[in-house]
């Protein structure tokens, strides 16, 4: 038994490098049921910590009488869901379709999910029952009441979903008279979700430190090993995760870490990027191998288990060659502009003809806006201007005066003015987020934009003689309003007033970024910078 325990612990240490202290800490705290309520704060990788805890308790060899329930506060969005999930998990009850998806029945046939009282009753019942079972099974453990552990992942969501349940959950052991430890795991601090008036007892705090560089690399290497094991089990011919590539992978991962750690040191993000680049990275190595094998063609039927790795200068060249594509991967994959699978396919480059593939279009340059009709583009642009320019500047920006160039320019008066009046630098509205504007203002700006930039593109109508008359007519058309509504339904515009409200003009907010507006303006050949009160 001791050997088992040591084994499983060492496996855990291997899988979760950097958590050794935490593991011994928490097992000692919970195995002896010393504390009813723990609060673990992990700002970095709560997901990994959760899976570690899950593994500790699910296959804990040291205390077989521990019952464990792992719930996610997001998934348990109603009290009933929480009660059901917790009780089923603690009882180890497998819900089956055949018996009508019954929950753990207990023995008195009552329902345990309608209130906190019945839930506590259920807990008590569960405890008694399993105790009895144990007692009957082997007499040695009669005196030992089973301990239970309830792990609540993403505990910060309890505050929105089930604020009434926080207090009972933190006092679960006290209320139910059962040896149950509640563990809240969250990326937020206890102070942020603590119920008022000291209704909950103060928890035992454990903070998880950020993983060090070596820990990160070690855990990525562990993942490589487990992937290669699963690949081998699946029996694929693909040698991308061949175990003998491990030394090369170690070097590769370290390189990935060095390149990306400036932007992210989230283990899972790094693993994501590493996984996306690895097949392309290792491809030349594998190719060389297969060529060598083809030359020798003696043992090319997979019996050759060892792959010869390139020499150190070869590795250095490989790493150097792939550095730009790693940053490209970070650029695209970290904001998930595409997914790793597709990226890996698209960037599966050939060593020999790869020079021109490197030019990945960067995210901002590749905004394509040709899916919208022309009027919608103008509406969006007008909305952007209405949301960034202050309303009082409209007359100056869009009014058609004799000396319009002079008026329109904001000039360099702003620093002078700012210096004279106040020292606090004004933050540009573009950075503060969009302002709300009424529909009328949107239409007025749209009219100005159309009059300046769209007259030539319009089919000529002989019956409009006055300047601007045609634009006025176009502005009132049904499809302009339809375009606004359609853009609202696309959430490119946000309507801030309720649809039912008839009083007053509807108010909108622009939903596009400066970059999109820039692309639109370029497409429509509108000088956007001249029209902004606070140009770039």
């Amino acid at each position, binding site marked *: 038994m001791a050997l088992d325990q040591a084994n499983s612990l060492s496996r855990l240490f291997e899988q979760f490098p950097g958590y050794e202290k935490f593991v011994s800490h928490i097992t000692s705290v919970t195995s002896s049921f010393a504390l009813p309520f723990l609060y673990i704060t992990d700002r970095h990788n709560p997901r990994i910590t959760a899976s570690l805890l899950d593994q500790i308790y699910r296959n804990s060899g040291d205390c077989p009488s521990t019952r464990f329930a792992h719930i996610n506060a997001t*998934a348990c969005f109603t009290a009933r869901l929480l009660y059901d999930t917790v009780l089923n998990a603690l009882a180890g009850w497998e819900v089956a379709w055949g018996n*009508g998806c019954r929950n753990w029945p207990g023995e008195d046939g009552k329902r345990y999910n309608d209130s906190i009282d019945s839930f506590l009753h259920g807990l008590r019942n569960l405890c008694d029952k399993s105790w009895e079972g144990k007692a009957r099974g082997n007499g040695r453990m009669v005196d030992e009441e089973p301990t239970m552990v309830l792990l609540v992942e993403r505990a910060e969501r309890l505050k929105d979903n089930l604020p009434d349940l926080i207090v009972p959950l933190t006092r679960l052991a006290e209320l139910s008279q059962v040896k149950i430890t509640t563990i809240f795991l969250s990326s937020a601090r206890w102070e942020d979700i603590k119920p008022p008036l000291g209704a909950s007892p103060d928890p035992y705090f454990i903070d998880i430190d950020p993983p060090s560089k070596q820990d990160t690399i070690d855990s990525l290497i562990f993942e490589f090993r487990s992937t290669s094991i699963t690949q081998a089990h699946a029996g694929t011919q693909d040698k991308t995760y061949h175990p003998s590539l491990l030394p090369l992978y170690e070097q590769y991962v370290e390189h990935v870490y060095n390149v990306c750690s400036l932007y992210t040191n989230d283990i*899972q993000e790094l*693993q994501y990027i590493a*996984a996306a680049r690895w097949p392309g990275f290792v491809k030349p190595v594998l190719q060389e191998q297969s060529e060598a094998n083809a030359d020798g063609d003696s043992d090319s039927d997979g019996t050759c288990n060892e792959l010869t790795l390139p020499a150190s200068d070869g590795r250095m060249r490989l790493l150097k060659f792939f550095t730009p594509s790693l940053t490209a991967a970070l650029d695209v994959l970290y904001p998930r502009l595409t997914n*790793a699978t597709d990226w890996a396919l698209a960037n599966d480059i050939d060593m020999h003809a790869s020079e021109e593939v490197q030019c990945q279009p960067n995210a901002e340059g590749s905004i394509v806006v040709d899916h919208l*009709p022309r009027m919608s583009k103008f509406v969006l642009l007008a909305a952007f201007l209405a949301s960034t320019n202050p309303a009082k500047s409209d007359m100056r920006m869009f009014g058609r005066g004799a000396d319009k160039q002079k008026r329109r320019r904001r000039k360099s008066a702003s620093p002078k003015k700012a210096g004279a009046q106040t020292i606090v630098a004004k933050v540009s509205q573009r950075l503060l987020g969009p302002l709300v504007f009424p529909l009328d203002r949107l239409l007025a700006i749209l009219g100005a934009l159309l009059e300046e930039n769209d007259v030539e593109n319009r089919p000529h109508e002989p019956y409009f003689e006055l300047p601007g008359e045609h634009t006025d007519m176009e502005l009132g058309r*049904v499809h302009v309003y339809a375009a606004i509504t359609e853009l609202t*339904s696309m959430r490119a515009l946000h309507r801030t007033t309720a649809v039912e409200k008839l009083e007053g003009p509807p108010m909108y907010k622009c939903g596009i970024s400066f970059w999109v507006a820039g692309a639109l303006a370029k497409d429509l050949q509108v000088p956007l910078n001249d029209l902004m009160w606070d140009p770039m």
Partner: protein
Amino acid sequence: MAVNIDLDDINQTTVYIPFHDSDDVNTDTTPPSLFPERDFHQGCQLRFQACRAAWGKCLKRMQELIHSLHAPVVESVVEQVKKSYMDELPGLPYPELPVISVTSSSMSSSLFDEISFQLEENTDELFEDTNDHFVTHVFPSDCTTITGAMKTIVSGFVSRSPTGGQDIKRKPSTSLATYDIALLETWYRAVCDARDDRHHRSRLIVIMHDFEQLEPQVVQDMFEICSSYIPRLPLVFILALASPPSPSYIRATYPHAMLALLRVRDCPFPLAEKSLHNILLETFFDPTFEPDIMIGPTTIDFAVEFFTRHSSSLDGLLSILQLAHMKHFEEPLSVLAPAQALGWSKDAAQVLLTPDAFPFLDALFARVHGSTLIVPVEHATSWRSATVDSLLSSVETARDIFRLRVKLFRVAFRLILCVRQFMLVHERKSVQGDQTVPDLMCLALRGRLGSVYGHLCSMIKTLPAAQLEDFARVVHDFFEDILEDVKAEENEVISRVETAYKMLCRDATTQDVSSLLGDWLSEYFKLRIVALEDAPLWDIWYTGSTPFPCELINPSPRASILAGLIHPHDYISPGQLNGDDEDDDLPDISILFKGYLESAKMINVYDWFESFVVFLEARKRRVGETRIADVTSGTSRTPSKKGKQKQAEDKVIDEDTGEDEEWLVEVQARFIHALQELDYLGFIKHTGRKADHVMRTVFDSPE
């Protein structure tokens, strides 16, 4: 109408005056003809039927085309669903939830029906590849809360019995909740057991309609919950987005934490503009398809302009073309558009030989005799012997001529496109110009394509030897593929192309052949690409350059309301107009609106009322004067006028008795009524900032 209500009764605070439609209800449902001078009684009905038939044919064709646009998208979505959970990159930190986003802004919702049909029922027998996936649909109205969203998803699947037999009753209190995803998991296990599906091949597909309308917070929670259950539950999400794939709505709205859980793949539609060009080309310029009505360049222009400017939806295109058809059939002569429009000749004669059909016949006769159908020599004599039958048979002849001409026109146009395509492929950039396919269509229909094909033919002459041979083969193949009847008509150019082709095969000098071929083709185009208006009676089958009624598709309500208030006479049907002095019969609301336009930002309601009174009094005085003038001079009185006069005289007497007060009450009521109407139209804002004042809301100066 007996209204036995005592309006003076103070105890009755509310009075209900029932509505009695006193106007004669027109039992004849057919609308009046726009051209009564050359229409006949049944014309409208017949034209309506013809229009229905013509549009139906056109619509069917276009729907097929739109449907074929869907096919590749449906296929790729189905393919991705099948591959999900199988084509995962090894080594990822955790499985990702597959999400396929489909941009469907310009497409109809039938797309998703097709997708779900393909996924649920369609069986690919060739590979024994049953698509037995489960599909459930989620609409924004279901998803205002996370409970509702989960309930929709879970019960959408669970409502289907896994074994196909009787469903086992679940007790609502002691079983899993209906919004618990664990229930879905249990159900899926049961399904896999029942189907003996050890590899869990069935996918659970959730189609989320109008994804932008969903509450982001709810969606975020939902994805988080679902992603914690994969791959035990092979869920696949299909998002129906209205917004374009770039800038991406999903990436702009949702945080990184959620995006990291998903594997989003986009499934974009081909560019809407391209599909529009294609649909127009395949419907109206396909040699194998003959629409009953050919649309003219103005309609094409409008459709393209509207499509690129206002709404790139194919449904909009359908409406435009339907409207073009309806507009076309307003013309009385268009009743002759379909073959045997009026039934067989005997019936036709019966229909047309009624007295009220004479104007129609007259007009038709004039058109037939004004056209080239009648040889000029016969003009002097033939009109004597004209019968209905002979007229109709002339129309038949005209129809055949027009049909053939359009058909040959289409073939020639397609050949031009084909040549142009060839030149483009061979990197002759100069061909491109800035003309799109619809531009070329319009030019061709107007018969002004000369410069384009002239240019193309001159380029043929400069083709190098190898390309020339290719080119000759392309043209040769083009003529091989066309219909037999066209071949018979075009044998001249076909034989010439044949000759050129053979000459090239025999290694003749390229120079000679190319210049010959260029000239021949140019001649051919010149013969065929002519304005369709030259055909006799063309306006029966061709909309020509009639302006498109764009006000019906894209009206400007604000301008119409203002114009209606300022010039009410333009909107009142001419029968009700009687006075010659405009001011005399302005409706009250227009009088009020005049004052409105002249006032400042705030309007004093009392002043407004005063001016209204002044205006009405002035009018009353004028009416009185004219009447007095009438009375004094009155010798020529028609009987009908007599009654009116008498009434007026009564009124004069009333006035004389001095019921000024009653008049004032009436004026006040009329004022309030008109004011309410303006208020209802949104011209007035009650601010309460200033006593007795209301605010103007409209400040444009109309005219």
